[in-house]
């Protein structure tokens, strides 16, 4: 039996019928076509499916779609500006060569959005801990941390609060 849920996805109100057993990951990918949300393990180990739910980064593979009722969901598809320009976080990933195969990238960017949104300044060591729920086999995390550090510092200069 399908259940109708309402949520706000990337700024738009969405009403969709879901199977109560269905993960948010499957609904975003299969019903809403948001294929940036990647499936890497389906048990919350790899972080590739990370999206923001009411501003909080969660593994959408272990989050039931019905729990998203009334909530606000953000994926990388929702980050671009009105004229298609990249957000500063996306830009930092591009310029710091933090992208290789690209499969873990959207999830990491969503965690970066959560971190940057806090307005706090984080040390590199703190950032290491913050992203440790994301597995990446290509980069050794080096350039990902470079991108994160850059964007956290840039943001702090503008809206800094400790």
């Amino acid at each position, binding site marked *: 039996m399908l259940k109708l849920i309402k949520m706000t996805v990337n700024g738009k109100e969405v009403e969709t019928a879901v199977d109560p*057993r269905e993960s948010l990951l499957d609904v975003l*990918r299969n019903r809403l076509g*948001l*294929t*940036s*949300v*990647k*499936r*890497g*393990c*389906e*048990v919350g*180990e*790899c972080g*590739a499916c990370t999206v923001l739910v009411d501003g909080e980064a969660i593994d959408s593979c272990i989050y039931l779609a019905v729990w998203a009722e009334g909530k606000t969901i953000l*994926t*990388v*598809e929702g*980050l*671009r500006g009105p004229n298609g320009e*990249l957000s500063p976080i*996306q830009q930092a*990933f*591009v*310029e710091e*060569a933090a*992208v*290789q*195969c*690209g*499969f*873990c*990238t*959207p999830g990491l*960017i969503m965690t970066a959005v959560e971190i940057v949104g806090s307005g706090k300044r984080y040390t590199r060591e703190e950032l*290491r*801990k913050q*992203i*440790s*729920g*994301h*597995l*990446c*086999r*290509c*980069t*050794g*995390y*080096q*350039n*990902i*941390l470079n991108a994160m550090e850059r964007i956290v510092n840039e943001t702090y200069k503008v809206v800094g609060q400790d």
Partner: protein
Amino acid sequence: MGVGSRAIRVDACEKVTGGAKYTDDLRPANCLVAKVVRSTVANGRVKAFDLAAALAVPGVVKIVTCFDAPPFEFPTAGHPWSTEAAHQDVADRRLLNERVRIWGDDIAAVIAENEVAAARAARLVRVEYEEYPVVLTPQEAMAPGAPVLHDARPDNVLAHTSFKIGEGGYEEAAAAPGLRIVEGTYETQTVQHCHIEEPVCYAYMEKGRVVVVSSTQIPHIVRRVCSQATGLPFGKIRVIKPYIGGGFGNKQEVLYEPLAAFLTTQAGGRPVEIELSREETFAFTRVRHAIDFSLKTAVRPDGRLVARRYEAYSNQGGYASHGHSIAANASNAYRHLYQDEQVLDADTYTVYTNIASGGAMRGYGIPQANFAMEAHMDDVARAIGMDPIDLRVKNCMRQGYVDPGTGITCYTSGLLGCLDQGKKHIGWDEKRKAYANQTGDVRRGVGMAMFSYKTGVYPISLETASARLVLNQDGTAQLQMGATEIGQGADTVFTQMAAETIGFRDEDIHIVSTQDTDVTPFDTGAYASRQTYVSGMALKKAAKVFRARILDYAEFMLKRAAGAMDIRESWIVDAESGERLLSMADLAIESFYSLTNSVHITAEETNHCKSNTFSFGACFAEIEVDIPLGKIEVLNIINVHDSGMLINPALAEAQVHGGMSMGLGYALGEQLRYDAKGRPLNNNLLDYKLPTSMDTPELHAAFVETDDPSAPYGNKSLGEPPAIPVAPAIRNALLHATGVAVNSLPLTPQKLVEAFAAAGMIASWEG
């Protein structure tokens, strides 16, 4: 721009926005789902199925078993095919196997309308087996009376090769007076690639042909193997490769594409997808071979290697896959890097067992051999009281070396420069002294390891590649490569190469990332760190032809000799003065629509590469070890590489970071384990310890650039090498810190505590 610049990846924007489409992102809406039914014995034979309960599950479309599948035995390795039977890969499996050789072997497949129905039905398939004893290691499999896995190999030895470089035998040479003899055994473990995208493919029929869309490194090879496995002719199969979420060699293997191709023919041509779970990926795709080494060295007190003996046993698992190529490659590397005064005598065995099949993985046998070789070199240095780097420098390959087995020549070597940079970075001379006589529970050490690596597979196998350039009306061009982007940045460096050779700006080259065997020129794909070298040659050849055709057209338009003109920054210019004469857009639009001389300017070239070259590098590591905890912390680590000229230094550094990370996992935590029945114990990302950001130190990457004359742009292999020297460097740092030689990977706390206790460094650890 062009070659040598830190150009931004051409696919970066798509990959940060969700625009880049991977295989499952493209799955058609009406796609069926297939689930593989897996054997619950590791060695045996399927006697019968009871499908009644499974077929009753709503949504099940069809169940195909090993008794219904095509009878063809086929090879799965992503090697170029050989038309000579003696050089063909071993064909030892079928689409679905009645005779099962690993726990979880493919014995049937359920096709259903959705994932839930497919998974439920797969669980409800009842199977009756004849069960045989299980062998998990080469030693068990080679023991008298061991069960025979494949009738064609009654001793379970897939292959045994030997070579001898020099005169006489090892024992004879080692018996000479005045030599020190050093012996050791070294063990490497089974690990998995852990690309974050699972192996996934779907197949459907169109106009009587089968179209396979797959996450693969090797689309043209997938086409060939699909043909061999299903009996369909090559031309009836079309393979499409979209973006891929990592491969590292596991997708240089034809995994489930042939089964998907067969299943769509069983489902009326409807699309059928096979996407593995993480647990299946670990257990049923491919792994890095665990290889055990027994090494002996006779050395003069001054450090000159006189004679060496090498014996290696490689755990192949249930099916041949890349088979003996990997262990053979490992043994070749052992003879390349150091040369002996008298003789190197080597024997290598690859042995079938009942664990997951060993296949290609970043470094192709060399990380295993390098661990053994470089650990052993430190043991030799210690035995004669010599600095480990001095010992290496005294014996290592120099420019001009020619491999006696293959003729591969060392045209350029920056190895000694790599050692100098590494020593400086890590503070080698000071710290080797400072950490020499430590006491206490927490100690530090510095260690290093170095390697050589080939570039591509010539002359062992065919090396061929093709490239196509197609001019647009606005003076830009499409670039089509048979070579594949798998995350390493191939699309970007090919764009830079094309721009460099034609004289275009980077942004005027539009590379087509997707390979489609119907339209993409032939190339065998991404492996062996070959593409910038081999496919780069094809691209350079095509770009030169394309450039010449553009200049010919400029001659027609401008009535100037083509030879007096050049292309720079996408302009036709006077070759001498550089004066801009004609924009590429004006030239292109005329070439398309001229009423007197219309021509579509394109170029397509194949290059049959008949050369190879050595790249080099070294890893230097400083560690701190907590002896009672058995825990290693990496304080500082650097890889320094000679990969020839760098096409894109930013991407080169990124490759090194990723390889170092893989090497750190190999050194410190990763191991796929099995129980006595051959069942995997930790086939998930929680229990298998892939390095997280918290486990990874700052990664330093540096280069010594050499301009290799055999290469299209002075470049040599880079993709795989960074993973090679990390584990032995850390093992050698541990030896330096503690004096304890731990000769098996990974260097886990449990293992270290046992070693320290055995060395009397932990008094009452059992209490």
